[in-house]
C-alpha cells in the first residue's frame, strides 16, 4: 500500500460550493429530508477525462436506473488514500467515478462522498474571498489522495510548492462566468492541463 511519500504526478481540482458541503453533511440541496445525490460533480467531463481515467483506472459494469429503465453502465474505479490525522495511519477505500448521465450531460461525479472520512469537511467554512478547492493529488505510484485547500493558504508565499500554487492561483484568477466553480487539472508528467476559465 502507498505510504504517501513520493512524487506528485498530477492534480485535479474543483471549487466547493455551499451545496457540496450540505452533501457532505448528508443533507439535500433543496429539501430537509436528507435525500438527494451525495456526490461531487465535475463539469467539463470530456476535458478532464485524461486525468480522470488515470485516477480511476479500472472499469466496472454496474446496473443503474436511467429513465426508469435498468441499464448497465461503465463506472470508473480506483482507490482513495488518506492519513488519519490522530493516528497517522494511512487508510484506503475504493473510489467510484460515475460518467455523465443523459440528464446531466458533460458532468461526471464522485459518488457517495459522505462515506469517505477523507472528505470530512468539519473544519471547512466557505467565506467570501476564501474559496475552498477539493484537490485530488495522484502520485507516481498511482495512489490518489483527496484534500481540501483554502485559497488563503494557496496564496501564502512559501507554503505550497510554487508550481502547484501558481497553477491553482492562475485558474482561480481566470475569468469565468459568474457562479461557475473553479475547475481544472495539471499533469506534471506531460505538462498538459485544463482550466475552465480564460
Amino acid at each position: 500500500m502507498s505510504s504517501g511519500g513520493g512524487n506528485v504526478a498530477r492534480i485535479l481540482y474543483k471549487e466547493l460550493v455551499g451545496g457540496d458541503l450540505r452533501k457532505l453533511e448528508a443533507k439535500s440541496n433543496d429539501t430537509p429530508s436528507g435525500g438527494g445525490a451525495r456526490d461531487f460533480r465535475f463539469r467539463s467531463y470530456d476535458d478532464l477525462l485524461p486525468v480522470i481515467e488515470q485516477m480511476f483506472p479500472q472499469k466496472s459494469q454496474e446496473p443503474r436506473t436511467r429513465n426508469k429503465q435498468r441499464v448497465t453502465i461503465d463506472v470508473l474505479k480506483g482507490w482513495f488514500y488518506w492519513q488519519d490525522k490522530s493516528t497517522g495511519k494511512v487508510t484506503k477505500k475504493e473510489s467510484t467515478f460515475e460518467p455523465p448521465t443523459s440528464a446531466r450531460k458533460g458532468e461526471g461525479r464522485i459518488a457517495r462522498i459522505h462515506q469517505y472520512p477523507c472528505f470530512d469537511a468539519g473544519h471547512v467554512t466557505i467565506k467570501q474571498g476564501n474559496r475552498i478547492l477539493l484537490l485530488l493529488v495522484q502520485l507516481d505510484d498511482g495512489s490518489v489522495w483527496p484534500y481540501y485547500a483554502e485559497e488563503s493558504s494557496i496564496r501564502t508565499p512559501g507554503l505550497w510548492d510554487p508550481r502547484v500554487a501558481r497553477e491553482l492561483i492562475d485558474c482561480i484568477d481566470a475569468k469565468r462566468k459568474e457562479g461557475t466553480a473553479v475547475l481544472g487539472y495539471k499533469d506534471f508528467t506531460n505538462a498538459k492541463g485544463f482550466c475552465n476559465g480564460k
Partner: protein
Amino acid sequence: MASDACVYALKLLKRSKNVLISGPPGTGKSKLLAEVATAFESAANARQTRGGLIHDPGGKVPIPPSTGATGALIPAANKTNRKVFRTVFHQNSKYRDFVSGITPSLNQSRGSTEFTVVKGTLYRASEHAKTEGGAALLIIDEINRGPAVQVFGGAIVAIESDKRLAQTGEKRAETQYFEILDPETGQTIEYALPHDLYILAAMNQADASVEPLDVAFLRRWEPLRLEPNEEILRNYYGVGAKDIDISLPDQVTTINDALEASVRAWVSVNEQISLGRGPEFTIGHGVFMSDSNPQSMGLSEVLVSLCVAWSKVRAHVEEVFFGDIRGIAATFNALDGQGSNPFKLVDTTFADDLRFRLEGPANFDENNIYPALKAFARD
C-alpha cells in the same frame, strides 16, 4: 525525468539566455517548449524535474515547496518568483504587442484619454524578472511566422546576454539601452533588459509561409536543432531496432509488420526529401505519434492509424515538391513502378510537350497502405 533535449535547452538558456529551437515539423519543438517551461518553473534539477514536487500526507499542506538542492542546470535556480510568459508570432504581430506602444482605449468614459500605452509580452516578462526574487522565461513559438526583426525593434541588441543589466539590477558598462514608450507614464524612456529574463523561441525553417530571419537576428540566439529521430519512433511503436537481415513480408499479418514498414518507409522518404530538397524539409517522427499505444491495438486499427499519419506525410511531400511531379514520384519510389506500389509515374504529351502525372489512389486505406509502405521503403 526531463528529456535530454530539455536538459540541453536549459543548459543553453543558462549560458546564453536566448535559445532558438529549429527543426522540421513533427520533431517535438512545441513539446520541448512545454517541457522546458515546466522545468523552469520547477526550479529543481532538470534531471529530477518532478523530483522536487513531493507529497507530504502529514504536513500542513499536501505539496509543500521542495527542500531539495536547487538544480545546477536550471537558469536562476535561486529565484523563487518564477513565471513563464508565452506568445506566438504571426503575420500581424506588432512591436506594440511585444514591447509597448499606443493603442486606442476602449470603453473609456467621457473626458478620459482616448489612447493607452499597452504592455507587450517582452515588457511584462522583463518587468517580472526585475521584481524581488523574480525570473522569467519568455517562450515565442513560430518566431519566423511574423516579422520578427520589426517586432523586436530596438530590443534586438539588448537581448544579448552580455548587454543585459547586472544581476543586482544595476547598469553595467556593456548594458544596452533602447527607447520605449513607458506604459506607466506614456513618456519615451531608456530601457534595458534584466539579467534573469530568458527567451526560448522555436521555428520551422522549411515552412513555405514563413518569413526568413536575417543573419544579424539569428546571431543573437544560441541554436538548438531537432532532427527526425528513428529511435523515438521505434520506441513509440515498440518494434525494437531494425534487423537488416529481415525484409518486409509481401503480406501484412501482424501489427509489427505494419509498424516496421511504416518506420522503414518514413526513413526512406526522408532520405529522398533530403536529397531532393534538403534536410530541413524532412518530416519528423511526431506525425506518427499520439496518446494511443500501437501495441495495444489490433491490426485493422493500426492500419487505419497509419493511413491517417501517411496522409499527412503525403500532403507534406506534395507541398515540399510542389510543381515537381518527378520529385514526388522519386520520393514515393514510383519512378520505375515497383510491383506493389499503388503509385505510378505516367508520361504523356500535351501540345507536343512531355508531361508527367502521378497516378495512384486518392486516399490511403486498409488495403493499399501496406503495399504502399513496402514500396516507399525500397525494401
